[in-house]
């Protein structure tokens, strides 16, 4: 080995090392460029090609009744769209392996047979704008129709699903459950009733899911990225009982039609809890078919329409007078046909009588004597009466907070004129909703403790917890004794009043009050039409349920008899459904005359 050989070896080695380093350097530079400098651009480009984003629906929650019967739910419906640009003949291979060519006309016929459109209609949609890439063939079809169309294997059709609201029980509680509307941006949002009241509870939020897919559309394992988690809406649990609700609506509708009345309501409330078991309105809306009902009939009359209650209000006056200790059930009154009070305001009884009626307080209630009630009611000062009324929540809407709920009309006592001062003792000159009247009777049945009116018992979250549970703390309005005394006086209406024959429920003691109120004609005077009502409790010895029936402008019968049979039917049904045992304590049979 000589020196020159060694040198040449070294040179070659050096060259080799340099070459290798150079190549490595090129790779490193390229690597840095791709991985660092251009990384974002390249990633984005590849992501666009590979990734697919899907919306995961956070479906709107259900509205259910007190035993879980679904009153409103969300289902998926399907839109079928087409790309008119690519509408051409296509080949279809049947099960036997035979291939046939299908023309767009044939395909249109096949689609039309499923959707119920005409073949020309479908063909028209497909050919309306041949340069377009998008056209709705049919929207919101159900699963069966969707499957049939999909099985046609038409290559230029595309499908998408969208959630829609459905109401399996139709008009049962339709006016209370409400329906969907649209917000300012055209997104579906609760438009009426509980749908609107509990929109926050019911609304779900949609999620986004992004994944990368291979050439055949299958997700590449491990590439799913959930950018937004879908959150399904909660379930609004109502206090209503759908069976009773249906029964009430059916009985009410039959009676309203029979008497030729304009509208009616039924409210059933549980005395010991303040929960509404049924809120029936006639007319009522079927939320599946809103357009089938005129716009003004789509709300809940029981919550939204105040009316002058008339004689059913006398129970409140009686309880107030008894609670203030100014009279008792036996207090004797000589009720004249026409009574003029010291202020000069006057009223008269509905039936003419020459001699004054010698009535006890109970008799005043049984006879529904306006003069007697006015005389007893005016034992209280106007301010005292006003205070009792506000404590009974007259003039302020119930705790339900129903959309558009009315609180009735009650002017402050110092604004009452002399006539109003007198008529407010028997329920004219002020207005209440049907729900407010039911709540008055609930208070009397519950020993004078008014419980907050409940329509929604809470919002049930996906994990089963209940949120937004309403407060159920009661408030003592009148003493237990005066409440019981009032119930006993109301019982004389069922045992001897003019509607007593229609109020009998075998085995049960019933306490009720009829009402026939003159309706305002809308111009400040009273018109010719009446609101007839019946509110009551059963069993009278231990009141469990309030049923309050109101029927407006009946033609064939113009007093409480219009509403009484509905009360009897519904109360019987409630007592039966809840297995309330028949009364065992005999009625006190308060003396009504002296």
């Amino acid at each position, binding site marked *: 080995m000589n020196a020159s050989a060694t040198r040449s070896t070294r040179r070659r080695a050096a060259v080799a090392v340099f070459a290798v380093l150079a190549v490595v350097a090129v790779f490193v530079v390229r690597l840095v460029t791709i991985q660092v400098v251009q990384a974002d651009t390249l990633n984005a480009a590849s992501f666009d090609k590979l990734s697919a984003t899907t919306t995961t629906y956070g479906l709107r929650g259900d509205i259910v009744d007190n035993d879980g019967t679904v009153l409103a739910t969300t289902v998926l419906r399907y839109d079928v769209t087409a790309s008119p640009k690519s509408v051409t003949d296509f080949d279809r291979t049947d099960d036997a392996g035979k291939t046939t060519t299908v023309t767009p006309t044939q395909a249109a016929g096949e689609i039309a047979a499923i959707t119920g459109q005409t073949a020309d209609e479908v063909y028209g949609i497909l050919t309306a704008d041949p340069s377009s890439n998008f056209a709705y063939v049919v929207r919101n079809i159900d699963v069966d129709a969707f499957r049939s169309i999909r099985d046609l294997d038409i290559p230029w059709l595309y499908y998408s699903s969208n959630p829609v609201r459905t109401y399996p029980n139709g008009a049962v509680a339709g006016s209370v459950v409400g329906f969907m509307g649209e917000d300012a941006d055209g997104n579906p949002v609760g438009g009426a009733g509980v749908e609107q009241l509990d929109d926050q509870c019911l609304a779900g939020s949609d999620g986004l899911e992004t994944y990368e897919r291979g050439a055949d559309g299958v997700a590449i394992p491990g590439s799913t990225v959930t950018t937004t988690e879908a959150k399904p809406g909660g379930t609004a649990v109502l206090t209503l009982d759908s069976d009773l609700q*249906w029964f009430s609506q059916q009985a009410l509708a039959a009676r309203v039609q029979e008497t030729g009345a304009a509208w009616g309501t039924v409210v059933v409330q549980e005395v010991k809890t303040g929960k509404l078991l049924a809120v029936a309105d006639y007319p009522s809306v079927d939320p599946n078919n809103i357009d089938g009902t005129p716009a003004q009939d789509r709300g809940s009359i029981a919550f939204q329409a105040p009316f002058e209650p008339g004689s059913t209000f006398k129970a409140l006056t009686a309880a107030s007078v008894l609670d203030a200790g100014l009279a008792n059930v036996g207090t004797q009154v000589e009720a004249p046909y026409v009574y003029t009070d010291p202020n000069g305001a006057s009223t008269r009884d509905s039936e003419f009588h020459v001699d004054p009626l010698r009535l006890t307080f109970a008799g005043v209630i049984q006879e529904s004597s306006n003069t007697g009630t006015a005389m007893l009611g005016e034992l209280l000062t106007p301010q005292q009466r006003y205070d009792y009324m506000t404590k009974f929540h007259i003039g302020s809407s119930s705790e339900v907070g129903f959309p558009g709920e009315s609180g009735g009309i009650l002017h402050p006592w110092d604004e009452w004129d002399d006539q109003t001062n007198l008529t407010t003792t028997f329920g004219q000159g002020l207005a209440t909703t049907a729900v407010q009247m039911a709540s008055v009777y609930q208070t009397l049945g519950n020993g004078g403790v008014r419980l907050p009116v409940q329509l929604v018992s809470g919002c049930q979250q996906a994990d089963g917890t209940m949120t937004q549970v309403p407060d159920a703390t009661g408030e003592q309005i009148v003493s237990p004794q005066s409440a019981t005394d009032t119930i006993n006086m109301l019982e004389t209406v069922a045992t001897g009043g003019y509607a007593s024959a229609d109020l009998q429920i075998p085995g049960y003691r019933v306490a009720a009050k009829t009402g026939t109120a003159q309706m305002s004609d809308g111009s400040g005077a009273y018109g010719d039409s009446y609101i007839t009502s019946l509110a009551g409790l059963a069993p009278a010895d231990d009141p469990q349920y309030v049923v309050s029936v109101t029927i407006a402008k009946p033609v064939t019968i113009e007093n409480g008899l219009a509403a009484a049979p509905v009360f009897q039917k519904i109360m019987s049904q409630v007592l039966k459904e809840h297995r309330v045992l028949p009364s065992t304590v005999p009625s006190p049979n308060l003396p009504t005359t002296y």
Partner: protein
Amino acid sequence: MTNLAGAYMSRPRTAIAEPAAAPPIEIDPPIAPRIEIVPSRTQKRARPKIAYAAVVVTGVLAIVVTQLLLSIGLSDGAYEISSLQSQQKELDRSNQVLTEQFDKLSSPQNLAASAESLGMVANSAPVYLRLSDGAVLGSPVAAAGSSVTGGQALVPNSLLAPPTVAAATGAAGADGTASAPPAPEAQPDVPWQGALPSPTTR
């Protein structure tokens, strides 16, 4: 490089030592002496053994094969997930169809119509039997035979427009006996065996 050069240089030395070990006395014409380069201990250690190569190659192969199998498994899984997902979607759809149908059929309108088409009537005067003392509460009254709906469905449900159970059974019973309650089928009396059933209370 330097290592190799060193080994090169040392070879002649060991080669010279080799013939000296040959026996001096030979009968046959002497064959050419077998010359072999004997590696030094360091060289022996430095030279790679075939076993190592084998292990490495096998290892690499094993890794490649495992990787391959793993990715086959993964993509198989992806297809399986995809097919199961579409299966789930189909089942969800079927579930939705059946739930909708169930909810519709169990609506009070449909139940009442179906019950009445079967000739059932409501009795609004129930009587209770108190188990503790056998007392009968309430006065038994026969059902009036009047229907609740009076044949009028006054609470509409547009979902029930297609023929329902009620309509189907109503049509079936329309041959003259639709209005009358069907006579109960004659059941052979079965004598009760043992004690009367009573609720268990503790």
